[in-house]
């Protein structure tokens, strides 16, 4: 039966981010219908999607997740995580399932768990590509069949329809692969026939937990959805949501502060009204939702583009700091001369000047000579061995290369032995695209587990 209001408790912006435990206990007292938390995004870079690994450690994730599992037992409502294990690939869903099973075993809990994997096969994607069903979003890179074939992982971002199916399985715990940050929250109120635009809008406001309040680190917030709008209430006693803090969250990590593209349509908050409600809450109404046909899901993929080794040398001699660009030019020349006609010929070297312009590169407007500069040499090759061999080849120059031929041999400071550090694989994001889907409800399969 459809409910007139749905309450969703969001413990933090993502699993691994701080939250106030007392606030969580307060939240449980409000009798939420669902506890929903995000497990990641592309925010931390391509390595996680490329490797299918989590940003946070097993032990830290287990510690936080076990607090949420205990709260779920008290509340007797489903606990849902989206984009499990930072990147939301099948490997990270399995990782999260392992953690969940381990905690359940320790607590001697009998639980029903459902997993939703949102990986897409290369075959499926190639078929979509050939039939023109992959569409670029603004600012998308060019793609081709090779790029699709070279991806180590490709996922689609689940929308409300797919999350609803998982919630409907009546599991105690739902572990979803890559999902939009918002779908894990909007799915339930939409399923109950409540205001669709407000479901997405509330979900966007809550996707970073208490970031939409005056005390972001308190984490926990409660969303209440109904036919006309939503109300956001922070669960930490000293924390306030104000019309300003709530509206301002529409700016965060969004290219456009008024429009949000989601699976199956888009949200427009241009005419939304944010009104102070009771002491610490904000009531929001007036946003609009527009369905879009055909139904699309956003996709993400990362491909291996090389392996890297880095070396760092510290320069303290003022003569060399003054002429750092000239010195770096000499280093480069020496390197490319050495690798010419060798098997290292296609290795790429980049030299960044830490203490000068390593952050902004050619956008840096300030030119000051500091008392020291670190030169970070980054070697990128098609194997780790080649990247490391290249770094070793430049080692004598990093240590001793003189500016002038006739000066006494200089020596620079290596902070480590060896100065080369293998950084491992380099991945690159390759899609900013959506795929057209014929049957949104049946695109992914659910898997059922019991502890």
């Amino acid at each position, binding site marked *: 039966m459809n409910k007139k209001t749905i309450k969703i408790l969001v413990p933090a912006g993502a699993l691994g981010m701080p939250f106030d435990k007392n606030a969580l206990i307060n939240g449980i007292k409000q009798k939420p219908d669902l506890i929903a938390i995000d497990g990641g995004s592309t925010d931390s870079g391509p390595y996680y999607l490329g490797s299918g690994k989590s940003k946070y450690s097993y032990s830290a994730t287990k510690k936080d997740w076990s607090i949420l599992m205990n709260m779920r037992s008290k509340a007797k409502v489903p606990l849902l995580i989206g984009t499990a294990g930072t990147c939301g690939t099948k490997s990270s869903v399995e990782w999260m399932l392992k953690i969940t099973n381990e905690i359940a075993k320790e607590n001697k809990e009998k639980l029903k768990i459902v997993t939703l994997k949102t990986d897409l096969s290369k075959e499926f994607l190639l078929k979509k590509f050939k039939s023109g069903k992959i569409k670029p979003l*603004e600012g998308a890179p060019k793609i081709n069949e090779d790029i699709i074939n070279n991806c180590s992982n490709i996922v689609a971002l689940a929308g409300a329809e797919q999350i609803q199916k998982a919630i409907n399985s009546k599991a105690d715990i739902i572990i979803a692969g890559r999902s939009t940050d918002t779908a894990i929250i909007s799915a339930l109120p939409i399923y109950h026939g409540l205001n669709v635009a407000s479901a997405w809008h509330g979900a966007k406001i809550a996707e970073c937990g208490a970031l939409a309040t005056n005390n972001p680190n308190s984490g926990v917030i409660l969303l209440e959805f109904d036919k006309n709008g939503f109300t956001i209430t922070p669960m930490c006693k000293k924390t306030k949501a104000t019309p300003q803090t709530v509206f301002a969250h529409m700016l965060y990590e969004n290219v456009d502060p008024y429009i949000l593209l989601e699976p199956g349509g888009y949200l427009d908050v241009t005419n939304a009204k944010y009104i102070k409600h009771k002491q610490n809450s904000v009531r929001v109404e007036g946003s609009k939702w527009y369905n879009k046909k055909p139904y699309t899901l956003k996709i993400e993929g990362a491909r291996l*583009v090389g392996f890297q080794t880095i070396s760092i040398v510290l320069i303290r001699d003022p003569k060399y700091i003054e002429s750092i660009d000239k010195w770096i030019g000499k280093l480069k020349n020496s390197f490319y001369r050495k690798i010419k006609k060798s098997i290292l010929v296609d290795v790429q070297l980049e030299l960044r000047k830490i203490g000068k312009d390593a952050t902004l590169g050619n956008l840096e*407007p300030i030119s000051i000579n500091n008392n020291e500069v670190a030169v970070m040499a980054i070697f990128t090759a098609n194997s780790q061995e080649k990247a490391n061999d290249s770094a070793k080849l430049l080692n004598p120059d990093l240590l001793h290369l003189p500016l002038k031929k006739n000066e006494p041999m200089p020596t620079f400071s290596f902070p480590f032995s060896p100065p080369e550090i293998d950084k491992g694989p*380099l991945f690159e*994001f390759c899609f900013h695209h959506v795929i057209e889907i014929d049957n949104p409800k049946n695109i992914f399969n659910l898997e059922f587990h019991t502890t």
Partner: protein
Amino acid sequence: MKTLSKITKNIRSKNAGPFWVTVDLFFKDNNSFFYACENISNEKVSNILKIKKNQLKRFEIENLKVIKFSFPRKNIQGSRLDRDMHGASFAILFEQLLL
């Protein structure tokens, strides 16, 4: 001549997905906001970012006293030539912008 940091409460920059960066300028009061709306041209901003003017998106949000700029990244987040995974330091370029 004064820098933009003198009339703002906060300036933050952040990646908006792997292909875009967005910068939010929070102004101290209405006067500063309206002054900035008139005096920060898209030319000026695209010059400090070394991008084409038509790549820049601009939003003036009076209710929040915020001007927001979004633009595509020159190097995809985390790719070989990217220097700033979260686009954190673009904010500094705006803080030092001369009005």
